[in-house]
């Protein structure tokens, strides 16, 4: 008999009990914390005289407020320094491992978890950060929580959750040249809507996902939340296991083989039943860019921007306001949309393969003189690995700034921000009004190679028309 989906199996393994509310109490296998959403939770713990229940299953990093220009202390921004100092004190007191900038392991929480092998299949992972869905790429059940829930997890090692439905999204066939994971997820959000995933967990499957590297799977799972789904996952396979083997927190030798058996056992059964199935033909896709102010307002780079009149009635008003903010007209394409800033970074697209692919576009070319372009690697390890390959030189020679690791301009909590109504070509995940630090700023989401192309041309450009200098 079918034991169901990965979601069912991992849920059942971690279920402690059913609470009087009808919610299930789930054990948390990995609790990731960062400086923005955790200090208040530690404060609540102190108020109630409670201690951290599972410090060894908790791991901290600092990412949102860290300056990417210099890691010298104290930080120039007093508020950032205070948040960092508070985190240092909290983790010291509770005995929680901290990927501190001084260790060389610091980075965006959703980059360092997988990188250090903390993220593993068949585990439950929570973090006070909506992009925790990223870790689902490994077949973990991973979701974002609020600060009061962080308090719950710190105090009890568990979280109260309602079980959700599962939608399987199959992307079949082969991706055309120039189309990558980011385009797949932007297309999914565009088709199913920003609230299409509410009440669902997304299981990504099909030829494209099976043949995709772990970094691509992470980019897709990362933006599940932009589609309204709190979690998304991919069933673990050999690609997953190979990627994990040898990483810091992953068991070695015989223990690794044993663990693999567990990982295999939590894969969705062939005959598992789904609440919904969506199929997408990969051959229809092209690079996707956003024209509006929600991640669902995307369009193929050669396709016309829709007329709000042609959209469902409940989307028209938002579309009109978005087009006004962005200064775009229905019927035009996004190609040629002038940009002022190119941001290559974020938990969606700042891993080594993302930087490698972007570098193939940048190499031997120069950033448009009117464009401020920056690369913000996802972690200190990504940065070091990229430098070992000479990627930093390629970017710097072209005119990109090569900065330290952090969330940076994805959400503008450090010094990296848009100014005035600057337009940004961004490899990040959200194009909300004000997201990149300026309330009048404009964000166009796209894949990393498209960001590179936009930086060179000074406008949104179809990367397929640019010849790679040194194809990988």
């Amino acid at each position, binding site marked *: 008999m079918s034991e169901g989906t990965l979601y069912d199996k991992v849920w059942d393994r*971690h*279920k402690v*009990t059913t*609470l*009087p*509310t*009808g*919610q299930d*109490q789930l*054990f948390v*296998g990995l609790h990731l914390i960062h400086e*923005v*959403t955790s200090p*208040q939770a530690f*404060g609540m713990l102190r108020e*109630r*005289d*409670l201690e951290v229940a*599972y410090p*060894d*299953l908790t791991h901290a990093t600092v990412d*949102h407020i860290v300056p990417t220009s210099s890691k010298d202390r104290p930080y120039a921004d007093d*508020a*950032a320094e*205070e*948040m960092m100092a508070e985190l240092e004190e909290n983790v010291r007191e509770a005995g929680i491992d901290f990927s501190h900038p001084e260790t060389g392991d610091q980075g965006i929480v959703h980059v360092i978890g997988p990188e250090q092998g903390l993220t593993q299949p*068949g585990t439950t992972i929570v973090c006070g950060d*909506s992009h*925790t869905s990223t870790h689902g790429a490994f077949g973990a059940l991973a979701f974002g*929580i*609020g*600060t*009061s*829930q962080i308090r*719950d997890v710190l*105090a*009890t*090692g*568990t979280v*109260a959750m*309602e079980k959700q439905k599962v939608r399987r999204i199959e992307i079949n066939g082969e991706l055309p040249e120039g189309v990558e994971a980011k385009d797949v997820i932007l297309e999914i959000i565009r088709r199913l809507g*920003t*609230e299409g995933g*509410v009440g669902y967990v997304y299981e990504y499957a099909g030829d494209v996902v099976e043949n995709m590297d772990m970094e691509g799977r992470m980019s897709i799972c990362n933006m599940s*939340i932009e589609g*309204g789904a*709190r979690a998304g996952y991919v069933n673990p396979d050999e690609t997953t296991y190979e990627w994990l083997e040898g990483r810091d927190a992953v*068991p070695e030798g015989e*223990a690794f083989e044993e663990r693999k058996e567990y990982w295999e056992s939590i894969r969705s059964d062939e005959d598992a039943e789904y609440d919904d199935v969506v199929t997408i033909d990969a051959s229809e896709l092209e690079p996707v860019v956003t024209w509006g102010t929600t991640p669902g307002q995307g369009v193929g780079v050669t396709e016309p921007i829709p007329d709000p009149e042609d959209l469902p009635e*409940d989307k028209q*008003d*938002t579309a009109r306001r978005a087009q006004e903010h962005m200064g775009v007209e229905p019927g035009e394409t996004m190609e040629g949309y002038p940009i002022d800033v190119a941001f290559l970074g974020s938990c969606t697209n700042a891993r080594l393969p993302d930087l490698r692919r972007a570098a193939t576009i940048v190499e031997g070319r120069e950033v448009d003189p009117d464009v401020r372009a920056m690369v913000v690697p996802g972690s200190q390890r990504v940065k070091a690995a990229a430098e070992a390959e000479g990627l930093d030189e390629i970017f710097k020679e072209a005119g990109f700034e090569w900065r330290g690791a952090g969330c940076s301009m994805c*959400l503008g*909590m450090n010094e990296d921000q848009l100014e005035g109504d600057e337009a940004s070509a961004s490899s990040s995940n*959200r194009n*909300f*009004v*004000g997201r990149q*630090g300026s*309330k009048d700023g404009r964000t166009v989401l796209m894949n990393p190679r498209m960001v590179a192309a936009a930086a060179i041309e000074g406008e949104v450009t179809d990367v397929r028309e640019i010849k790679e200098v040194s194809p990988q």
Partner: protein
Amino acid sequence: MSDEVEIPSVEEVSGTGVAIRGNDIDTDQIIPARFMKVVTFDGLGQFAFFDQRFESATPEESRDGDGDAVVADEQKDHPMNDPEHKDASVMVVNANFGCGSSREHAPQALMRWGIDALIGESFAEIFAGNCLALGIPTVTADEETIAELQEWVEENPDGELEIDVADETVTYDGKTVDVTVDEAQRKALVEGVWDTTALMKANADAIEETAESLPYVEDGKRV
């Protein structure tokens, strides 16, 4: 001590309303990230919907010498700036309200501004969960019901709305309409078990048992 935390039941919420129109209102709009460089939630109320309410762009520009938000002549036309709505405690919104970032700062800011309950077409999940953790109901109704409510609230800023969480109704203008409250949310609010820390901590033995049954945990450590 956790056992001493008093969790009140939330069976009814009443007060005047304020309508915030638009679908997909994200938590970056409810509280821009630049106001989150804080280690407590204190004082976040003044930053609720800041960029929709004020012209100034940065905290420095928008605060006076005492750190308070500058209100005079910086205001935009926004329902939360309207003196008639300044005491509102029920926010009436449209679809997918609270999408995006998981920041609890968003419901904290609304709560500290004065909001005790939200009525909308739909809410993003993390946002609704964060509201519940604060004892704030997020009740839903169809598009038409919401449209009528928003219009009425705009025309009757002094009008009282009564949300009955247990009965799943909203009473206003002398009539009672049906709304929906998610079952777990309703139970949690009505029975006063929405603060889950003590509730879950009481299951310490079962937690331990679950932990040790997992192949990757031993003695509370990752193996």
